[in-house]
């Protein structure tokens, strides 16, 4: 199936999901659905660098927060400009702002992508472990910077009031956010799938399998790793951009929360890192599980469950749910059987 065909098919599924949600009629489905879809984007983004290239990013929360705080910064810009900038500039600002959500997403994604590129440039020439450690440290440092930056509220946080309705079709705002995230997820998995089957995907796989041999066969490993890091960071930033509107009040501990760090890793690894299906599966299953657990038990316990599942799967079922599926329901295609049997034994 070609890429544009897949995109249309996924879009159709998405529309179906939206229609089902409308039928249910309870706004809560949009709130919960938004969170799950957000994780689909995060997990898919993580997997581009982690699953395809083999470079682990522990600082997903940092990129997510970049997207969120870019939105906050832009949201506060009109106030800032009316107070400090010349009237000429301010009138331009007044007509352009408030920026529509798609623009915020693009800007948030661009900045997060840039940060991903910068960090990659500094650390990707070294062993994979140093990149992983650097991403951990990045999250802490970025949080420190944000906490010290009063313009976006610092440690006190920032309020972003959600508009009551959107200019489109009179749907309420939470529905609008849900649709945006739905579209973003469809774009994310289409991009991930198209990478898998492309020359870029082969390059990524060689980096994961044996970077030294990849270089020797002519693969420009640094360039490809930078592409992966930038793309991954950008999508995470895009996932974070609408978040302040969703949550209404953004403060550093929620933006940099534990939930993002562990879920971005656990979802692809539990779902299966070898293809775009894994992160999608992991996000829907684990995301749904956490929504249920948060309501019935507590959100801390639901996070604990995710962490335990991660450790469990990494030890027992390293190829995730996809791997287990292929083990117990082997495909008839000899190539796939071959590949799965080989992956299982590694």
């Amino acid at each position, binding site marked *: 199936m070609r890429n544009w065909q897949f995109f249309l098919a996924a879009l159709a599924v998405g529309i179906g999901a939206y229609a089902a949600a409308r039928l249910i009629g309870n706004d809560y489905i949009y709130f919960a659905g938004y969170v799950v879809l957000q994780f689909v984007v995060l997990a898919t983004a993580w997997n581009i660098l982690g699953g395809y290239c083999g470079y682990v990013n522990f600082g997903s929360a940092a990129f997510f927060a970049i997207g969120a705080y870019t939105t906050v910064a832009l949201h506060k810009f009109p106030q800032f400009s009316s107070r400090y900038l010349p009237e000429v500039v301010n009138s331009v600002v007044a007509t352009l702002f408030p920026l529509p959500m798609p623009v915020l997403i693009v800007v948030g994604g661009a900045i997060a992508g840039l940060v991903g590129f910068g960090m990659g440039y500094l650390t990707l020439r070294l062993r994979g472990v140093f990149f992983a450690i650097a991403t951990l440290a990045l999250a802490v440092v970025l949080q420190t910077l944000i906490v010290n930056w009063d313009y976006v509220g610092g440690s006190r946080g920032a309020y972003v009031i959600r508009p009551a309705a959107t200019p489109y079709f009179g749907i309420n705002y939470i529905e609008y956010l849900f649709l945006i995230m739905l579209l973003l997820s469809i774009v994310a998995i289409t991009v991930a799938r198209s990478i898998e089957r492309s*020359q870029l995907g*082969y*390059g990524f*796989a*060689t980096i*994961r*399998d*044996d970077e*030294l*041999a*990849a*270089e*020797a*066969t*002519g*693969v*420009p*490993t*640094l360039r490809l790793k930078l592409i992966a890091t930038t793309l991954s960071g950008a999508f995470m930033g895009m996932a974070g951009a609408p978040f302040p509107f969703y949550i209404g009040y953004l403060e550093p501990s929620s933006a940099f929360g534990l939930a993002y760090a562990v879920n971005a890793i656990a979802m692809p690894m539990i779902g299966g890192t*070898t293809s775009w299906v894994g992160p999608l599966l992991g996000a829907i299953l684990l995301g749904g599980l956490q929504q249920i657990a948060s309501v019935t038990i507590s959100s801390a316990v639901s996070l604990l469950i995710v962490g335990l599942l991660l450790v469990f799967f990494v030890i027992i079922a390293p190829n995730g749910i996809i791997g287990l599926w292929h083990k117990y329901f082997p495909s008839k295609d*000899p*190539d796939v059987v*071959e*590949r799965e*049997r*080989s*992956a299982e*034994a*590694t």
Partner: protein
Amino acid sequence: MTPLLQVENLSKRFGGFVALDGINLEVAQGERLGLIGPNGSGKSTLVNCLCGTLHNETGDVHFDGRPINGLQAHQRTHLGMARSFQLPRPFHTLTVAENLRVPLLYTVNTRPGAALSEGQIEARCRELLGLVSLEHKARKMPRDLTQVEMRKLELARAMAADPKLLIADESMAGLSQSEVKDIVALLIRLNERGITIILIEHIMSAVMSFSQRLVVLVSGRKIADGNPGDVIRDPEVERAYLGQ
């Protein structure tokens, strides 16, 4: 004509240990060079430095007339240098045939005027697999290959990059006599097509039947360089290497 490869005063240390000490080497276009030496003499280190996998501290390397000192490994491969690894390093999540696609996509296709179509890539893969008698294993995974088959894949992958210079690092360990003869014949055929080849081997029959020139490395230093017949009769070589 300028030599294809010119190495001047190349040295490499690992901490206090001197692996290579002032190596000087020239390889002419179209030559068949044999490189021998005891284990630990620095042969693989030399290969790694030439190909850019390791960085040498001193020395100038010129390939095809250009200085390549700062270039990364993949850039040197694009220029026409290919190598096989002593311990095979296949891409284990790709099939045998897909392993060959990588150099075709990432090296051959990047050269000006190349642009192989999908059909051409597949044909080339089949051709290469045929050269090393691995066609029947095209869709297998590397871990299903025998040691010998993995070495052949390693060689095929290096050949897939369509190199000007092919460095074969101990590709024949574990092969039977007839298989060794086949590989030597294959390499000579490639050489007749114009590929310069450096063969690093311990199997003396292969080295002698293949090489037009022989270089001997001992403890990081070149101790002999010349006609194979003369070199193996050199008393210093006998003492350092063959006498062991």
